[in-house]
Every structure is written in structure tokens, then in C-alpha cells.
């Protein structure tokens, strides 16, 4: 895919192995242009979360290694940096399943996001108010324990926490997981807002291909650890193969079972 403008993140042909035995990513390359939202799509087990964790270097804790390839953020190699160093560089990951600090209050959760920043307390307070402006329900629940908040609030808290680190890029892992459809729309609207107003780039791993392609600028489709398709989000959404396999829209009239077996478009890219 041709690069539009400056790339803030370049992943070059990485191979990831877990426990030294299980090969999960078999040469994934992608590019996130500055100021854009890039979606990483695919079914379960395709390797989306692994790709994100490879970028933010959280793999080591799960006994995973990037054995080949390189990852560059703003032109600098970041393969060997520790997660805290990466956060200081401006890349932060919002993990799958929200992962809030259950025993801290909502406000304390948000404040932990600002840990790496060495700025005055007043400025952190201002950032906190900005985050509350984006996520109004959080403000109402600012003093309750995070473990008792709802899924949607926890997702907002996780994104808000990442925002407090003033990142240049957020790696968002399955933000729609476990959320009501209306809330999913809301969250994605906020993501778009953040992208346009705060100029934060996003690399989004998402199973809900429909919603992701509506809000993203570019997309990559992963299958079995390989990138099988990429392009502008609008093009992907119109692509026949994507429509059939990921959006559940098939062309043509209703098919009988025999027809479906015969005329079903084959996934040609499976190796």
C-alpha cells in the first residue's frame, strides 16, 4: 500500500513466536500514516492482538518473541524498548478486555496514565478535565471503585487513561468487545473525535469489521498470521470478498446449499 504522508509507525515483516514453538505471525507488515486511523481486521486467532503487543513490547511477559523484522516509530527502531520507554516515546496500548485497576477509583485509574509525565500537578488536572470532557459518564462516577463500573465505563476509562499519557499514537485492542451496539458507536465517535481534534493516530484491532471500516481511514486484513488484504477503508468495504467473508453480505439472490457450496467465492489467499 502506498504511504500517504508521513508514517508514524512502520511494521516491517515481523515474525512472532510464542514459547519458542508456536508461530503466530508469519511476516506482517503495515504502515500507520500520521494522524490517521488504521484498522487491523480479522477473525479470532488471526494475530491482531499479537501484532499490537509486538509493537508495544508487551509480548515478553507472555513468552512471545519478535524473531524477525523490525518496528519503527517515527523513524526510530523500537524493538528493544521496554513498555515504559515506549510510552514516553508516545505509543500506548489499550489492552483487550479493558484491564482496569479494579481497586482504584475511576479518577485514580485515569491518573495512573499520567505516571510517565513529569509535569506540574495543575497541568495534569487540566488534562484530567479534558478527558472528562470527552467521556462525560466518567465524571459522574469519578470516585467509585473501577471494579464496580459497567463495561462501557471501563472501556472509556481505559481509553481515557491512555489519553492522559499525551500519546502520539494509541494502539486500541478490540474496543467493541462486550459492549452494547449503541455504546460501540459512541466509543468510535469519540475515537474519531480524538483523532481529529487531538491529532492522535490510532491502530485499531477490531473484530467488528462493519463499524471499524466506517470509522477508519485504512485497513489491513489479517488471516492466520499474514496480511491478506489492505487498502483504503472505503475500498475494502466495497470489496466483494470482504463483503462476503467479513461483513456477511453476499452478492446475488438466495442460494441453496448446493449452490453455496459450488459458487461460494473461495478464499484464494489461504496458503
Amino acid at each position, binding site marked *: 500500500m502506498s504511504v500517504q504522508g508521513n508514517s508514524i509507525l512502520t511494521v516491517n515483516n515481523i515474525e512472532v513466536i510464542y514459547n519458542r514453538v508456536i508461530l503466530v505471525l508469519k511476516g506482517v507488515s503495515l504502515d500507520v500514516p500520521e494522524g490517521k486511523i488504521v484498522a487491523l481486521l480479522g477473525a479470532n486467532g488471526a494475530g491482531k492482538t499479537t501484532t499490537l503487543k509486538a509493537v508495544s513490547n508487551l509480548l515478553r511477559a507472555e513468552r512471545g518473541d519478535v524473531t524477525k523484522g523490525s518496528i519503527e516509530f517515527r523513524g526510530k527502531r523500537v524493538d528493544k524498548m521496554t513498555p515504559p520507554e515506549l510510552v514516553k516515546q508516545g505509543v500506548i496500548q489499550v489492552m483487550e478486555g479493558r484491564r*482496569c485497576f479494579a481497586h482504584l477509583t475511576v479518577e485514580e485509574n485515569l491518573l*495512573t496514565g499520567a505516571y510517565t509525565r513529569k509535569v506540574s500537578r495543575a497541568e495534569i488536572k487540566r488534562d484530567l478535565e479534558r478527558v472528562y470532557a470527552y467521556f462525560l459518564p466518567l465524571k459522574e462516577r469519578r470516585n467509585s471503585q473501577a471494579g464496580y463500573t459497567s463495561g462501557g465505563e471501563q472501556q472509556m476509562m481505559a481509553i481515557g487513561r491512555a489519553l492522559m499519557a499525551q500519546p502520539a499514537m494509541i494502539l486500541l485492542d478490540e474496543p467493541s468487545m462486550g459492549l452494547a451496539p449503541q455504546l460501540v458507536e459512541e466509543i468510535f465517535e469519540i475515537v474519531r473525535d480524538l483523532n481529529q481534534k487531538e491529532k492522535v493516530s490510532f491502530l485499531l484491532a477490531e473484530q467488528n469489521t462493519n463499524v471499524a471500516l466506517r470509522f477508519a481511514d485504512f485497513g489491513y486484513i489479517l488471516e492466520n498470521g499474514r496480511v491478506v488484504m489492505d487498502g483504503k477503508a472505503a475500498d475494502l468495504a466495497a470489496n466483494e470478498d470482504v463483503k462476503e467473508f467479513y461483513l456477511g453480505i453476499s452478492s446475488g439472490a438466495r442460494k441453496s446449499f448446493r449452490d453455496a457450496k459450488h459458487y461460494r467465492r473461495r478464499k484464494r489467499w489461504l496458503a
Partner: protein
Amino acid sequence: MLFFIEVLIGGLLAGVMYSLVALGFVLIYKASGVLNFAQGSMVLFAALSFVSILAMGVPFWLALLLTLAIMVLLGVVIEKVVLRPLVNQPQITLFMATIGLSILIEALGQMIWGSQVHGLDLGINDIPFNFYGVFISQFDLFAAGCAAVLVAGLSLFFHKTKIGRALRAVADDHQAAMSVGIPLKHVWTVVWAAAGFVALVAGLLWGSRLGVQFALTLVVLKALPVLILGGFTSIPGAIIGGLIIGATEKLAEVFIGPYFGGGIENWFPYALALVFLLIRPDGLFGEKHIERV
């Protein structure tokens, strides 16, 4: 009646001594979710180092500083060698690692400093106070004072400072804390060094009570009921739990024990803590277990 009060106060103050050991546990558990079984060995190691350095002729305060430095160094090494590779492992794995650690530290202490019993004199007169006919040990009061200062300081640290908040975050979820940029290694080094300091205080006080010997590691078994009762994550809980356990243990020993032929103090605190647990499964003051299905 006076006897009862005397036993009660004696028990309360003994309980404070248990709390001091329990505080070390709470500190580490609150900051990393690890139940540090090696706390007892750390107490012994601290006390051993201190008396051995003293025996070499080093003046009291310098010896104290040196021992503190040793404990901090121990904390740094533990963090680097044991904890860092085990980030994100389930609690029980870390717990087992600390059991291995306790064996190691005990052996190490005895290899370096020898295994004979040392006496320890802190220079505190043990002349009992006579308080309206009740005799209270000065030493115990001093220990209670130390504990109070520690508790106040630690509580403030955990709830009012940025790094205290980071510590509590790490205890909740290692990986999420890492993803947010909290540098686990610095955090844990601080925590283990602090726990080493608490172990030193406990070691000195217990050491002057019991003499510095292997049996010091067994104070762990006395601290566990305190932790169950007070909650693994609560600093005031460690004190209140200690007071309750200490008092009831002494009272049971004196008033109930003779009916059973004595020896009940081994299991009585545990049974008592168990009863409390049935009412408050997370301890009296512990953080409630929050689960989403």
C-alpha cells in the same frame, strides 16, 4: 480482674509485635500482589546482619545504617533475579517463588553470619510501668510506638502519593500497569527495599525479645492469622488484626488452655481468624474481591 487486664494488655502488645511482621507482608502484597513468604527469613537476615556487624565493633547507628543498606541491596537483587522474570504469572507461582526465596535467604544468612544464637540489646530498659496497679512493659510500649509510626507513614504513602497509587495499580494488574508506562522494576525495587526496612525494624524488636536465632523465621506463622483477620491489603488491618490476635491468643492461653492441657496457641489464632473469615471473606479491612463474569 487486674490479672485479666494485665493479660489483656500483654496480649495487645504482643499483637503489635505480630503486626510489625504482618506489615511487611501487607506492603509487598499491596504493591505487587505477591504474598511474600520470605518475610520471616528477611526478618532473621536483618537481625543476624545487625548483630554480626555490631559484634565486629561497629557503633550502633552505623551498624543500623549498614544493615539498612544490606536490606535495600537484598531487595534490589530479589527484584532483578526473581520478580522481573516472573512478571504476569499467577499469584500462586509468585508465592512459591517466595517460599524458595525464604529457604535461600535463611541458608544465605547462616552461611554468611554463622548459625549460633546471638543476643541483642537495644538499650531499652525493660522495667515495667506500674499503671494503676497494672504492669506494662516499657519495651512493648516502645514497639507499639514504632508500629504506630510505621503504619501512619505507610498509609499516607499508599493513598496520597503518585508512586503509592502506581504501587496499588501494579498489585491489581501487572500487565496493565506495564502498558500504562509504570516501570515495574523501579516500583518493585522500592517496595522490596521498604519491606526490607520493615523487616529490619521487626527483626530488631523481635530479636531483642527472643534472641536472634532460627526461630525468628517462625514468626511468619504467627503473622499469617493477623493477615487473614485484618486483610492482606490493609495497613490498619495489620495493626487491628494484630491486636485482636495477640489479645485473644494470650487470653485463650491463660484462661482456656488449661482445660485442654495447654499448647493451643498454635492453632487457636488460625481458628479465630477462620471464624472471622466466614463473616468477612476478605478479612476485616481487606479489599473486596471484585470479579466480572
